[in-house]
């Protein structure tokens, strides 16, 4: 049995659509007061997983315990306790913001006054405006408001900031952090590593329907055992021996992809001179050199050889 205190407990979840294995034996546990992120590329099975947890999609196999209750048995209770924001819900454009929130509020027995919810998502000035006139960020805040009207114990957010400009994204992050600071738990999906790093206490990196890494953003980045990533390309020769690169001072690992090289590096100031000397020795001319601090994106690249957003 799962620990009774955990708001969400998922064990060995499976879901198949036709011949596509969407979720393949996925485990996760959200702890009380925690913001937990499912990070992965499009098609990794994040939305299927969160919709199974929301009771909207039945799983093919596996165990899901939400707030100590189970779907199929305690649905009516669970609906009262959960706040849900789906990917790409369009609310009726002819209703005003206030009318939409009032409608959703009417479905719940308990919860804050609609005006209070409008304040929480900072839409006071738009309360009387038709939904059709809202910007993308305002629509996402309305979606968040509709998830908050029932004063939920657990909040599910499926890609809450996809498609938003950086400013609207930051505003939404602030609102999500406010909710978490009230002591309640959040499960969110995202394919933005900045979002996962900024918001989540713990992150599960998901690929092909499985969790391939789990931990705090800091732990995950630390698992690379390298604080920096160095990428370079050479123009004169097409081959630089990878083994010689891996042997350079301060390099943890070296990989080559599409004609460019990628080194995970502990101490940049030692590695760069060594790299330049080695390339000169092999007679290669440096045509490109970039470095950045290691991030969740690099964790994903290291684990899968692909990028989170292949654009």
């Amino acid at each position, binding site marked *: 049995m799962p620990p009774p205190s955990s708001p969400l407990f998922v064990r060995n979840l499976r879901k198949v659509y036709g011949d596509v294995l969407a979720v393949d034996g996925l485990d996760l546990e959200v702890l009380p007061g925690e913001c937990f992120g499912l990070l992965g590329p499009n098609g990794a099975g994040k939305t299927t997983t969160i919709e199974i947890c929301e009771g909207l999609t039945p799983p093919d196999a596996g165990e899901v315990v939400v707030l100590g209750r189970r779907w199929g048995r305690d649905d009516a209770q669970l609906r009262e306790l959960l706040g849900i924001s789906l990917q790409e*819900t369009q609310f009726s454009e*002819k209703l005003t913001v206030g009318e939409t929130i*009032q*409608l959703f509020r*009417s479905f719940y027995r308990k919860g804050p006054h609609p005006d209070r919810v409008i304040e929480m998502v900072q839409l006071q000035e738009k309360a009387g405006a038709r939904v059709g006139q809202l910007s993308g960020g305002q629509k996402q805040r309305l979606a968040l408001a509709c998830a908050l009207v029932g004063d939920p114990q657990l909040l599910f957010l499926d890609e809450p900031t996809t498609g938003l400009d950086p400013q609207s994204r930051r505003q939404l992050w602030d609102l999500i952090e406010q909710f978490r600071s009230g002591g309640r738990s959040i499960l969110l999906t995202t394919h933005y590593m900045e979002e996962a790093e900024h918001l989540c206490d713990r992150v599960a990196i998901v690929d092909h329907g499985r969790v391939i890494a789990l931990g705090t953003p800091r732990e995950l980045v630390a698992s690379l055992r390298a604080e920096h990533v160095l990428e370079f390309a050479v123009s004169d020769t097409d081959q630089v021996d990878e083994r010689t690169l891996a042997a350079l001072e301060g390099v943890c690992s070296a990989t080559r992809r599409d004609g460019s090289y990628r080194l995970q590096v502990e101490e940049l100031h030692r590695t760069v001179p060594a790299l330049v000397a080695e390339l000169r020795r092999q007679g290669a001319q440096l045509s490109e050199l970039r470095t950045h601090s290691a991030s969740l994106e690099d964790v994903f690249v290291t684990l899968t050889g692909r990028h989170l957003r292949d654009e």
Partner: protein
Amino acid sequence: MTSSGPGWYRHPLVQLTLVRYREFFREPEAVFWVFIFPILLTAGLGIAFRRTAPERTPIAVVGSTPGTGELLQALRQDSSLKVQALDDSAATDSVRTGRVALVVRSLGPGMVQYEYDSERPESRTTRLAVDEAVQRAGGQRQAVRVSERKISERGSRYVDFVVPGLLGMNLMGSGIWGLGFAIVDARRKRLLKRLVATPMSRVQYLTSFVLSRLTLLIIEVVLLLGFAVVAFNVPIRGSLLLLVMVCVLSSLAFTALGLLIASRAKTVEGVSGLMNLVMLPMWIFSGVFFSASRFPDAIQPLIQVLPLTAVVDALRATMLQGVGPGRLLPELAIISGWLAVSFLLSLKLFRWR
């Protein structure tokens, strides 16, 4: 800012029904098609087919032979004819272009020739009237004594026939369109899925459609029948209560049919096609604009079980013949059958996502 309002206002069923009104009245096109268009259609048909004194049919007389004068005089005594004397080529031209229905040529005393297009019903009728006048002037006597009794009664005019038909058609259209588009649109926008992720009762969601439909129905029926009674003096001979019951039952049946049509469709285009597929046969066969009995006997059983046929027949019987509920049992049974079958099927088939 919004306010919570009194307790009843916070009830989900009230809120859901308010959403239906808001979405409807904030869509000017919908208001036009449901409320205004049927009135315009009634006005148009009522005026086009209004009963007026029969017009005089234009004919031409040609001839310079003796006896043409008597012929002209005899024809001018017939009040249904408008006689003009023309020369030969002008007359031929006029009958060919339809400006006159028939040309009478005087070929000499006691001899005439009729020139007309035998395909034109008006010309054939005119030939009978002209021939009667010509023969009487020639001295023919009636062999049988005939007396005539003419009727012109409220309820037998075309407008009286067509108003119940239009009312039935409108009940069908607003029931099927009102529900079909709203539900499929909500499904397409994933709003249905979002709603079932709340504690909302699914029964209350569907009930809100029925409630809003029934209240809008009152406006719809009162406007259309009110206009027909005031502008065209269309009779309502049966009991108003029975008429209201027929309207409510019909509206429920068409709403259920709309629910069935919308139960699976995922796109507005898809549901539009389905709705037209369902409604088109009824627009044609159910006797809205002309009597359904004009269609061949072989397909009559099919026509009679169409919901709109039963609705239009029941409305006509109530309004024009003033029959009691007992005589309407077959129609009411058909309408109730459609209501029950559509509703139960849609409960089985309906997809919330």
